[in-house]
């Protein structure tokens, strides 16, 4: 008997290949393949398969479907612990940390949740505070501390903020070389902190800075990194961070584990985690670290910084967005959306289709290959709601969609879905908004 592979279900994750005790599994062209000469029906691969693609024929009890018929569709269901995780989390007591053990540089103990606070051009990226809120939940779940890390030049004003948003400890590297963000010095500063204090989990915003410096740090540390997460969870027993992120252009969500190395590193998409409560005057422990490198150690220099003056550059911070799709039919019709945006003080954005049609520029694009937004109000005009667009806006507080197709996907995520002719509805809405806002009449 040999393990059977359902090729339509296999996602080529390779968990079975790692798990198989007799090396009978292989990935060929992204699909699990069994060597029948080697397979001894241990069934470990069957248990570890995330999509129930594997089964041992005539041994239904080994099938995960049998153990839990809903295993494939339930998210965050407790996994049968894969061997690789057991290696890390259970069989080796030294690596599973009782909450209060302090890590020693170079040792096996990794403890604590760290958030790297992004501070550039005198401003903190708000996602840093969102992550202190999320980090708090993770730290509480596994019973460890929460720390913030600030790197930059003259950063003292940021320290009380980090405490106010919930950090118990703040690590600071303050040096003129770190004045402007550059990969090399920032990666060096953060890596040496991590090596010294050995945190278990490190989070940073999935901003252009986070997504530039974290891959460099993960490579230096030779550990796993999951980019652009939208959901984080944690298993209190194994302390494995469940890092969920969109993949394949947002058409699927995947939960990634970093099974075999520490720290566990994630970048997290801005504006998907809630902003935590800010408590002024909260205090904590401050640890200052020296920055020992010299300018001659680095091979890059900043020539200048050109601030973007376009409104759209701040799309991800806009409170009201009026977005257009191909339903608008022609560039000249953009005017009706612009009038609405003007009345509301909103920002114009659009779908990839609208950008490719040349109506808008690339930095006005909302969605998977554009900007992720989370405004108070998102008004979608003539947008059908391709999944790539939805992932970029569906966490908006209130979505109003206007579309003439009652089957349009956008209507399924809208708080108010108006089915009808946008060329009549939008100007009517604009007029009504104008009337009420000018007269200060709400009802």
């Amino acid at each position: 008997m040999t393990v059977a592979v359902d090729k339509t279900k296999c996602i080529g994750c390779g968990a079975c290949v790692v798990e198989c005790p007799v090396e009978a599994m292989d990935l060929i062209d992204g699909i699990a393949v069994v060597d029948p000469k080697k397979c001894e029906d241990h069934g470990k691969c069957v248990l570890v398969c995330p999509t129930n693609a594997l089964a041992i024929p005539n041994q239904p009890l080994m099938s995960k479907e049998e153990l839990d018929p809903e295993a494939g569709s339930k998210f965050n269901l407790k996994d049968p612990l894969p061997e690789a995780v057991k290696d890390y989390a259970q069989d080796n007591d030294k690596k599973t940390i009782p909450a209060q053990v302090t890590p020693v540089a170079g040792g096996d103990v990794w403890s604590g949740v760290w958030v790297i606070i992004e501070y550039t051009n005198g401003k903190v990226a708000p996602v840093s505070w969102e992550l202190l809120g999320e980090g708090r939940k993770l730290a509480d779940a596994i019973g460890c501390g929460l720390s913030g890390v600030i790197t930059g030049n003259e950063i003292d004003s940021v320290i009380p903020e980090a405490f106010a948003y919930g950090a118990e400890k703040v690590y600071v590297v303050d040096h003129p070389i770190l004045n402007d963000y550059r990969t090399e010095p920032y990666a060096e500063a953060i890596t040496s902190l991590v090596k010294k204090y050995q945190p278990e989990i490190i989070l940073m915003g999935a901003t252009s800075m986070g997504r530039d410096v974290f891959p460099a740090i993960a490579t230096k540390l030779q550990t796993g990194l999951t980019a652009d997460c939208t959901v984080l969870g944690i298993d209190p027993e194994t302390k494995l961070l469940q890092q969920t992120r969109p993949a394949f252009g947002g058409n699927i969500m995947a939960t990634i584990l970093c099974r075999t190395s520490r720290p566990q590193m994630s970048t997290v998409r801005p504006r998907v985690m809630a902003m935590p409560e800010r408590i002024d005057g909260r205090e904590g422990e401050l640890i200052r670290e020296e920055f020992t490198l010299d300018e001659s150690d680095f091979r890059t220099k900043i020539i200048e910084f050109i601030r973007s003056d376009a409104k759209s550059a701040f799309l991800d911070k806009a409170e009201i967005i009026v977005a257009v799709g191909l339903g608008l039919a022609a560039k000249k019709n953009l005017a009706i959306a612009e009038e609405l945006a003007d009345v509301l003080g909103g920002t114009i954005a659009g779908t990839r289709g609208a950008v490719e049609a040349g109506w808008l520029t690339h930095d006005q694009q909302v969605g998977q290959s554009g900007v992720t937004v989370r405004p108070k109000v998102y008004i979608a005009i003539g947008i059908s709601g391709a999944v790539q667009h939805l992932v970029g806006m569906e966490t908006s507080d209130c979505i109003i969609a206007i579309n003439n197709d009652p089957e349009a996907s956008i209507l399924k995520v809208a708080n108010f879905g108006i089915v009808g002719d946008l060329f009549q509805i939008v100007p009517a809405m604009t007029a009504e908004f104008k009337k009420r806002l000018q007269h200060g009449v709400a009802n």
Partner: protein
Amino acid sequence: MNFVVCLKQVPDTSEVRIDPVTNTLMREGVPSIINPYDAHGLEEAIRLKEKVGGKVTIVCMGPPQAKEALKKAMSYGADRAILLSDRAFGGSDSLATAYILSMALKKLHETEPIDLVFAGKEAIDGDTAQTGPGIAQRLGFPQLTYAIKVRELTETSITVERKTESGRQVVQAQLPALLTVEKELNDLSYASLPNMMKAAAYEPETWDAKTLLFDVKQMGLKGSPTSVSRIFAPPSRSGGEIIDASKDPASIAATVVQKLFQSNVIMVNPLAKGGKR
């Protein structure tokens, strides 16, 4: 100058879906394409080669059928294409993938020093944006990510405009360096007929794990700290009120606006009350 372009063959992700019933990936009939961001990296390398002279080598990791992507890439005017293909590479995450690509680049660098490496800012199937920086770190090259413009290239340095949330950062790096590029960097050219004919007859080289004396512990599944534990369809937001405005659009619009005010979604004086959530 010696240019290297890292390129990936990817499924056209707009075609990939999850079967809502079985919760599995539907992959049949999904066409393969050159990762669009990588195509812009290749375009820039070829333009720079035409300007300053030199050669462009494409390196791609993937299954044997990725040769098709390499042949297509050759038709744009590259000089050499190498496919890194070995079963042992299967299941590599971004850390292991960067290791494999960096070993290939090291091998190239030893015989003919590399000046500039190009990669897309990310691949559209994984969207991790980690492989480029991973290669740069392992080679010890400075990394310039999210490049939208090459301002200047000299014998010893490159000056690039990088895209960030608040504006463009202009950075100069010593060569050799690695760039990951955005689509805004350039407009793609068409392949010329002579190059297309040359590419059709071209057979990319294939390097496997043995060619490169890889450390097997650092590649494939064993060299990958991260792994997928679950996949599922994106959670759908539950819908709200659907309003049919086909009959009397103007009054329906007015009613909706009224509701927005009543539920405080829009406030009469947004500057005074609105703003912060």
